[in-house]
């Protein structure tokens, strides 16, 4: 695991591909494990999950920031996939009505706004077609919980560029979501 993280830090080809399923599993596990805790009314932030996953996977050994930031890049992507897949399942279950007894029926019990998340994901995909880097900044900020400087490090761009991308992306996404 640590070797993989190191490989990721060193920019070894394929390291992200190799790590993605592990991170995906870990995030999923952490998210579901949380249900055993008391719900304390706090809104859960993806940031917390991602940081938690990172600490678990990297262990006690300190990773330099470079490796850590790359980890967050992969994790943000995994987190986006988990949430969007989940939202789509919830949405599908809702549309099906109550005819079948499925695993998904249980998901109807709670709130959340799956449709909005799906719409966001769609809009991000459209953004990625026009300007992939802006979409990546959004992914890192929303789903990885990174600050703008951190996102800039992950993407290997300057802070000013990251800020411009972030501003543009938010304008674009807001317009797309408002257009419904």
């Amino acid at each position, binding site marked *: 695991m640590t*070797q993989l993280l190191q490989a990721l830090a060193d920019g070894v080809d394929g390291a992200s591909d190799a790590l993605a399923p592990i991170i995906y599993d870990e995030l999923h*596990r952490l998210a579901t494990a949380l*249900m*055993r805790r008391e719900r304390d009314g706090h*809104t859960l932030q993806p940031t917390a999950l991602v940081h938690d996953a990172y600490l678990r996977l990297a262990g006690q050994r300190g990773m330099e920031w470079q490796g850590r930031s790359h980890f967050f890049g992969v994790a943000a992507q995994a987190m986006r996939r988990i949430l969007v897949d989940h939202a789509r399942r919830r949405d599908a279950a809702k549309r099906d009505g109550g005819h079948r007894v499925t*695993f998904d029926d249980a998901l109807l019990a709670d709130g959340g706004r799956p449709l909005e998340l799906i719409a966001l994901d769609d809009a991000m995909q459209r953004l990625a077609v026009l300007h992939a880097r802006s979409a990546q900044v959004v992914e890192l900020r929303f789903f990885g919980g990174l600050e703008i400087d951190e996102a800039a490090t992950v993407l290997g761009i300057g802070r000013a560029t990251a800020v411009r991308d972030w501003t543009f992306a938010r304008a674009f996404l*807001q317009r797309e979501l*408002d257009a419904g």
Partner: protein
Amino acid sequence: MRDRSHPSDAFARVRALFDAALEHPEAERTRFLADACGDDAALYDEVSSLLAALERHVRSGDASVPSVVAEQVAALVVDRASLIGTRIGAYELVRLIGEGGMGAVFEGVRADDQYRKRVALKFLRRGVEGDLAIRRFKYERQILANLGHANIAALLDGGVTEDGQPYIVMEYVDGTPITHYADTRSLDVPARVALLLQVCAAVQHAHANLVVHRDLKPGNILVSEAGQVKLLDFGIARLLRESEGADQLPPTIGGTHALTPEYASPEQLRGLPMGTPSDVYSLGVVAFELLVGRRPFDLRDRLLVEVQEIVCSQPAPAPSSLVDVSSDGGTRRRRQLQGDLDAILLQALRKEPERRYTAVAQLADDLQRVLDGAPVAARRDALTYRVGKFLRRRRFEVAALSVVFLSLLGGIVSTSRAAARAERDQRVAEEANRFLSTMLAAADPGYQGQDVTLRDVLAQAAQDVESEALSPEVEAQVRHTLGQTYYELGLYDSATVHVERAAELRERVYGEIDMRTSMSLSYLAALAEQRAEWARAESITTRVLRIQQSLRPVDEGELATAYDNAARYVFNLGRLDSALALQRIGLVHRRRATDSASLDALPYTLINMAVSYMNRDEHVEAQRLAIEALAAEARVHGTESVMYGSILRLYSQIYDGLGFPDSADATIKASVDVLERTVGTDHPDYLRALGVYAQHRVDAKDWVTAERVAREVVDAIGTHLPEGNLYAAASLQNLGLARAAQGHVAEGDDWLSRALALRRQVLPAQHWLIAVSESVLGHHYAMTDRLARGEPLMRTAIASLTEVRGETAPPTRAAAARLAEALERHGQADEAARWRIRAAEDSTPR
């Protein structure tokens, strides 16, 4: 020419203006934008709508979008808790028992059952792979469901929820982990050993059904109040891996998923294939912990790489040495473990899977002997430990003999476990082992771990077996074992004497249609192959094939192997079409075989079939099979195996045939590298790959490299490459071509003639490879101004190739091209043109 209205151009203008507008104070933006856009109204609309959207976003406090994400996370988290009370199939979820690496586990009850039977429901983590994994999951589940045993928690049901989540339903077990159970009751050593015997019984039963646990640990071994042991999660680790598609991941990753490092075997930590010995190892760790109070290695707070290093290379300490003597009864316990139990546990914990107990039953026998106060086998075994590996049969026998570059890989003597079992007739095996052990013990003082001494030992045994009055069954077993050992040492003459005798005895005692007789015959065929006696190899294999077809129940793996072998011999005799036909049938049986040992042989079957297609010039089909072979081998033995290296060699030749010389080059280099790392530069397989590399360099007319590489192979002839090896012939030929091309004509004559002579010596007279050598030598003569000497050779070669391989076969066409080139050189343009046309005629795959 770029289209002005290209979307990315349009976008670049929008983006540039958007960024620029933001540089201006808000009040001036509209003005700036209007100026900048001029009469491009569309551009103006686009940018101003984005600016307006940004304003709305900022006004809403930047909050709306991230909060959607956060809410979704929260929703995801509460999901599972709300599953309580819902129904999955016929079961109602009652309570969450745990959430582990394997996924969520719920307690459930059968809702349609008046007794409300308690069950445990496990949801396996969702995999990265889709339908295929789920199909496999269903199939495997069926096997596990049939594992009825009092000490195994029954798998009752299972399925896949409608949203694709696989789950299994197991018997609910009310118990405590074995170590906890024993400690809370302060059980003494014999009582703990008795518990282990129950565990062994369960594992043994599963192994007999070809199910490996893969994740044995105290947490999976529960003991009820009444003292009954129940094993949980049998085979689930495998299901889990497969449902995750982890088998497709590199071992380092797949390996980290479903294992508990403290109990994992060295092979498991390395990501290598795991069989029953892996369970034996884990059982050893559990037994160690149960008897000593701690595990053999302290792996707490270690990184996985460190764990690998420790478990794979540090020898396990003797259990008694780790007993805390300051504890209550510690001294007594140490004494109880010293000797027998130390020996038993250390044998179970050996690094090399084949050196542990070969079956859980043997471990159980030894533990029972401890309880009975009888002498244990592990202590006897320690004596033969060092030489033991020579006497254990190797599953695959890779023959050192190969015809040409495009020859089959091969020589698998036997593959299936059932066959191995049949051979290991308990009483006979025991007596035979006793005989061999006595003999090894007698020779032990002089044993230096060298072949020479082992040879002496074997020679002594060969004498003893004559004078000792052994029963025919036992004599057959002893001779078979001696034969195998000689075979592995490459002493084929001695091997033949013993295996022949073993086959005779077995046929007399058991009859012809018998697995044991068949096994001895298979070795006899392999020996004939080593001596290049293909006709004899073929006739013996035909008998083996008949036996395997007649045996009931049919052993699919063994039958497939017989077909593989028959195909190889027929192929070596030059009958390529018959070989392919046999391979096709063999593959059907191979795929039908469920025995894991037999599946290990799948790559052989596939790649050899690919070679047959190559020889028919059907490269696409060959490539398809080769890719499957590579994938299968990577799955079974990883990418650092001799077989993987050898498949790469053949794959490189397929690339060559498909007309991708660069890929062929890269692939053969990879092959040479893998083989150098796995078997070293003295090994025939390495030399074979090197030979192909030389061939590619010859084809590329890179004479300097070709010469260097071919010479390395030629230099090994007589030492690491047997002189009769046909592979040597190809390298002699390439060396000759390389020397001749660099102006050393006489040397070319010499090497090429030697290549031809060698082929004539070891191949049947009509073999097409002889013709190829004739054609090459003739061409060499003609191109060095000796047309009169070369032309007849070339013409005979073409006639022979046309007859044996057909007019459009690649070697025939190559021979025609050689003749054409020679004739052109000597000004016979018309005649040359006719041969050119023949050379260009494409073969049409049937």
